[in-house]
Structures are given as structure tokens and as C-alpha cells.
């Protein structure tokens, strides 16, 4: 006896238990009684392709017991789509939001959300909800992927609110690589941002400002290097002027291995600056980053042979 077996609402359904499908001893899967019973009713309703209010209640029950069961999610969305009375917005706000905040590593939740928001056709309320999500884990790959999907789906490139959002997260943790990546996405992923020298210059200033807060922050340096490599109108001399503040050669103070790395790349392309490139790479290999010494020595060999690695 159990919740479903005792319910008059489910009296017409003959549950299908797991054993009938399980030939191998390896596959013996132990269920708690509650979950096993709910699953046996799920098998029965799926077998008859029932799409009803009670199926919504059943799938909700199962998802609460085991949110990783991807089959149940797909079945739930199909049921929601088939029921004229079901409200997708309610599904989002009263069911999915609290569940997402409890199960941070769950992949199925985000796919379900994408299907719902796509069907609703609006992203209203999404930014507010995501603030709560990122407060729990500001680098969650699923949540960021979902946010990028929103940008692509609703064409939010260059949107002031998206940029303000990345600014807020970078303000909270300047080393949040996901936020930096999102900033790149919003600014440049639609194709024409990198040819806009005004935008590129503004972003270069932004990255430099953040490096001033944390000189050894790989994310900000990577952003700056991306602009240097792909952006229009970046003056290399200006970048050099900035980088030397963090990587003094000839016995000066070194505050950042990334600055040394960048200087070595730029100097390495100029035969007149070869000595400086060599010096920067030797400092990395011998003193500031010896764990990757073979990498820096490879770069050194490239510079010495006249083939500068960028």
C-alpha cells in the first residue's frame, strides 16, 4: 500500500513495477518504497501516453524525489504543452524557481526552463530570478549557458542591462571568469562589436581598470589579450605602457606573470626587442612560474629562432 495505491483518483491505473524489465543482476536498483511506487505509476501512464492534470502531480512528486530523472522532465513538458489549463508562467515561478535554487548542479532543470521561456516568448522576470541563482554560485556553467541562450534567443547583444549585470558580478568578484566571458559575449558575439574601435577602446579601459584591482587575475588579462588580438584600432604601445607597470624588466618589480607573458608576446614579434622578450620568458621559467618551465622554454626557443609565438 502507498500514496497512489490508496488513492481513488488512481484506482483505474495498473502500476508497472520495475522487475519485469530487469534481466541482469547488475541492474538491480534499490528504491525507497515511496519512489518505487510513484515510478510504477509513471511507467503505466507513459505506456498509455496519458497527458493529464494528475500526471502533472505525479511527475512533480517524482521530480521532488529525484530531479535528475531526465525522462520525467520531458514527459512533464509534453503534458504541460498538451493541457490548455496549464500555466507555463506558474510552472516557472512557483515550481521551477524554488527547485532550481535547491538543486544547483542539475542540468534538466535548465533545459526545462529553456523550453518554457521559449514557449512563453518573453524573458520577463528572468534577470531577477538569475540574481538569486548567481548568489548561490556565481560560476555555475549551466546558469551562465542559460543566460547566454537568453542573449541569443532574445537578441540582447549590447544590451545595457546585460552589461550592467556583468559589471555587477565582476564588481563582486573580479576573478569571475564566467562573468568576463559573458561580457565578451554581449559585446562581441554578434559579429560587429570588434570592428567598433570606440567600443574596443572602452572595453580596453575597462579591463585595465580591473587589472589594477588584482594584477594576477588571468580572466582580465585574457579579456585584454582578446581585444588586442581581435579588436579594431588597439594601439599596441598603449598596452605595453600598461603592462610594464606590472612587469618591470631589468630588475624591476614583477607583480603579474600575465603581464610578463603579454610583454614577451609583443616584444617577441619585434627583432629590435628580442632581448627584452628573452628576459621576460627567462624570468617566467626560472623565477615567477617554474611549474610551467617547459612551456616558457618552448616560447624562448621560438623567440630565439625568430618565429615568435603569439
Amino acid at each position: 500500500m502507498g500514496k497512489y495505491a490508496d488513492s481513488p483518483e488512481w484506482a483505474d491505473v495498473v502500476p508497472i513495477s520495475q522487475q519485469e524489465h530487469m534481466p541482469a543482476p547488475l541492474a538491480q536498483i534499490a528504491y525507497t518504497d515511496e519512489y518505487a511506487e510513484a515510478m510504477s505509476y509513471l511507467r503505466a501512464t507513459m505506456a498509455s501516453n496519458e497527458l493529464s492534470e494528475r500526471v502533472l502531480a505525479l511527475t512533480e512528486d517524482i521530480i521532488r524525489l529525484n530531479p535528475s530523472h531526465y525522462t520525467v522532465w520531458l514527459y512533464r513538458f509534453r503534458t504541460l504543452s498538451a493541457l490548455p489549463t496549464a500555466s507555463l508562467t506558474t510552472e516557472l515561478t512557483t515550481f521551477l524557481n524554488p527547485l532550481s535554487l535547491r538543486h544547483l548542479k542539475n542540468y534538466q532543470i535548465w533545459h526545462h526552463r529553456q523550453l518554457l521561456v521559449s514557449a512563453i516568448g518573453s524573458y520577463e522576470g528572468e534577470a531577477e530570478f538569475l540574481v538569486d541563482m548567481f548568489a548561490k554560485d556565481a560560476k555555475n556553467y549551466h546558469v551562465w549557458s542559460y543566460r547566454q541562450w537568453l542573449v541569443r534567443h532574445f537578441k540582447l547583444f549590447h544590451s545595457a542591462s546585460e552589461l550592467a549585470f556583468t559589471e555587477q558580478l565582476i564588481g563582486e568578484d573580479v576573478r569571475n571568469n564566467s562573468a568576463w566571458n559573458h561580457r565578451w559575449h554581449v559585446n562581441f558575439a554578434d559579429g560587429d562589436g570588434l570592428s567598433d574601435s570606440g567600443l574596443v577602446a572602452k572595453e580596453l579601459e575597462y579591463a585595465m581598470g580591473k587589472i589594477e584591482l588584482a594584477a594576477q587575475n588571468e580572466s582580465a588579462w585574457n579579456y585584454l589579450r582578446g581585444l588586442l588580438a581581435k579588436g579594431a584600432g588597439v594601439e599596441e604601445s598603449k598596452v605595453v605602457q600598461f603592462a610594464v607597470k606590472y612587469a618591470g624588466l631589468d630588475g624591476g618589480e614583477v607583480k603579474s606573470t600575465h603581464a610578463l607573458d603579454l610583454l614577451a608576446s609583443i616584444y617577441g614579434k619585434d627583432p629590435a626587442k628580442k632581448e627584452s622578450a628573452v628576459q621576460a620568458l627567462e624570468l617566467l621559467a626560472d623565477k615567477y612560474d617554474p611549474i610551467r618551465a617547459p612551456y616558457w622554454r618552448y616560447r624562448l626557443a621560438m623567440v630565439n629562432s625568430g618565429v615568435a609565438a603569439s
Partner: protein
Amino acid sequence: MSLASGPGLGGSSPDMLWADKHVEYIVSLDKRDDEYEYWLTEHLRLNGVFWGLHALHILGHPTALPRDDLIRFTMSCWDASSGGFGAAPDHDPHMLYTCSAVQILVMVDGVSVLDEPAEPGSSETKRMRVAHFISSLQDRETGTFHGDKYGEPDTRFLYNALNSLSLLGKLNLVDVPLAVKYIDSCSNADGGYGTVPGAESHSGQIFVCLAALSIAGVLDQRLKDDSKWADRLGGWLSERQISTGKGYGGLNGRPEKEEDVCYAWWVGTSLVMLQRSHWIDRPALRKFILSCQDGEHGGISDRPGHAVDVFHTHFGIVGLSLLEWSENKDGEASEPLGLEEVDPVYCMPRSITKALSRTG
């Protein structure tokens, strides 16, 4: 195969490999089906079987799990109508498990079960039906793959598709050049790759993209033609090694994240495929992995002091194999651990993929 964690914690002596303990640990997982966590991880069951079985192969105990049971369980996850495999019986078919299923069948030399008719009396074989399931998930406009007919695309699924189709000898069913083009569109300014165009670079996605390029047959030529690309990506990957603090020698998956044993595989194998695995401190990485072992009950955890699980046990073992064999090739061999060689592209025993490429 239980994916429940524990009972032990990683954190033993960093100098030796407790190989026999790990074998015992993996074999014992089959007998833990009375635990609460067992059904919570049901959605990964077939992956779990793959991780356990592959680790046993690399540890030199390929027959420690009964072959007949493995084949029977794998086929019980097969959905004849779609041709795909689910995570466990009655679960919807999905690319992830279909790839694991094919890899398991190949590893136990049981892939011939797929040469039976798909249904009694059918002229179509199970092999054809599996291959059609996989190829049906390619997006013919962009070249990427979906995990199932409802789901999002992910470069991980693209790799799963190329891996399993080539094992089945059916790569001709999909548009490989278009898949390559898609991978290129996922390349970021920092040199790495994400799940979809624009998504953050992540070591796991870099592994799947490089391995897919290799199966597509274009990686070698690119390494010759574009060493700057390989240098930039190799530089980003080598930057993943932690150079200070308690995680020293370990690898992370993205900038400013914590070290974790499983990245020994994703970063390590990417560097091997780029022919730049000597760019990191391999002895330091080996020490880090070994320090995540539970020397008493067996198993490996994500980092020292955490509970062991089959996922990190697998990636720890294959990571160690990768280190041992790449050092051997570079003539920098340290103390051998006696592990079988892993194929960096397929994530399967090298002896098996070698035999396949001879016959196929």
C-alpha cells in the same frame, strides 16, 4: 555500478598507487544497491558501468566484472524503437549513454550482439539502428549534435557521436566536415572551446573538441599548419596547473577555479593531443592524484580529504596512465605505476583501439 560516494576519504601517501584496493573498491560498487544514493544516481548508471569497467582495464583487471552481466545490462538499457540507449532500463535514450554502451560493448569484445536483427525477423541490424539514432541527432544546418530529440546541443554530444559512430564503423552516416566547422565556431578568443559558440572555455569541452577533430581526421594536419593555434591553446591549458598552495600540481577546469582530479584527464589528454603534455609539471600532477587516494578502502576523490567516488576513481586512474605513457614517450619516465595505456582520443584502452584500427 553504484555512483554513491564514499565510504572512504581520499588523502593517502602521494608516493604509491593502491591498485589492488582500487580494483576491490570498483568491484564492490556492484554490491551497494541497497543504499539511498544508488537510485538518486540512476540517471548515470550506464556511464558508471563504463567508468568502472574502463578503470579496471587500465588497472590490468579487464575481467573483474562478469562479461555476460555487462552485456545483458547494457542491452537492457537499449530502446529498440529509437535505437538509442538510456541511462538505465526504461530511461529515455540519450547520446551520452549510447556512447557509453557502445564503448562498453567494444571493451568486452561484445559488439557483435549488435549484429542481430533489430527485431525478430527484421532485416535491419541493431548496429544500423543504433547508428541511425546517433546520426539522427546531428543538426544538419550547423553540424553539431543534440543529446536527445528534445535537448540542447553540446560539443560533448558531438564528440560522443563521432566516437561511437567510428567504433561502429558508421562515421559515413553524418556530415563530418560540417561538424568540424561547428567546432571551429565554438573557439573563443582565449584559445579554448565551450559547449556552444560563445560559451565559456572549459577544459572538458576542449577535450571533446580536440578529440572530435582527431576522429574527424583533421587534427594532425592542423598541428602542422597552425602551430600558433596549438601554442595558444596549449598555453591556456598549461595555465590550468595550480602553482601555489595546497592544491599544488593539480589542475583546474577554468581560470580561478579549484583543482580537481578529473581535470587531470581533460586537461592532460588535451595537452597530449596537442603534443604539448610536457608543458606542465607531470610529476607534481601525479603526486596530486596519488594524494587523493583512499589507501584503505580504495577509490579516488576529487581532492584530498573528500569522499571517493567511481567518477573520480576512473579519471584519476586514466590520468595516471596518461602521465605514465606520455612521459615514457618523451623519455622522461619516472617510477612506473604499471598501468595499461589509455587512448587519449577515445578514452578507452589503447590495446583495444589499436586492434580496432587494424581490423577496421
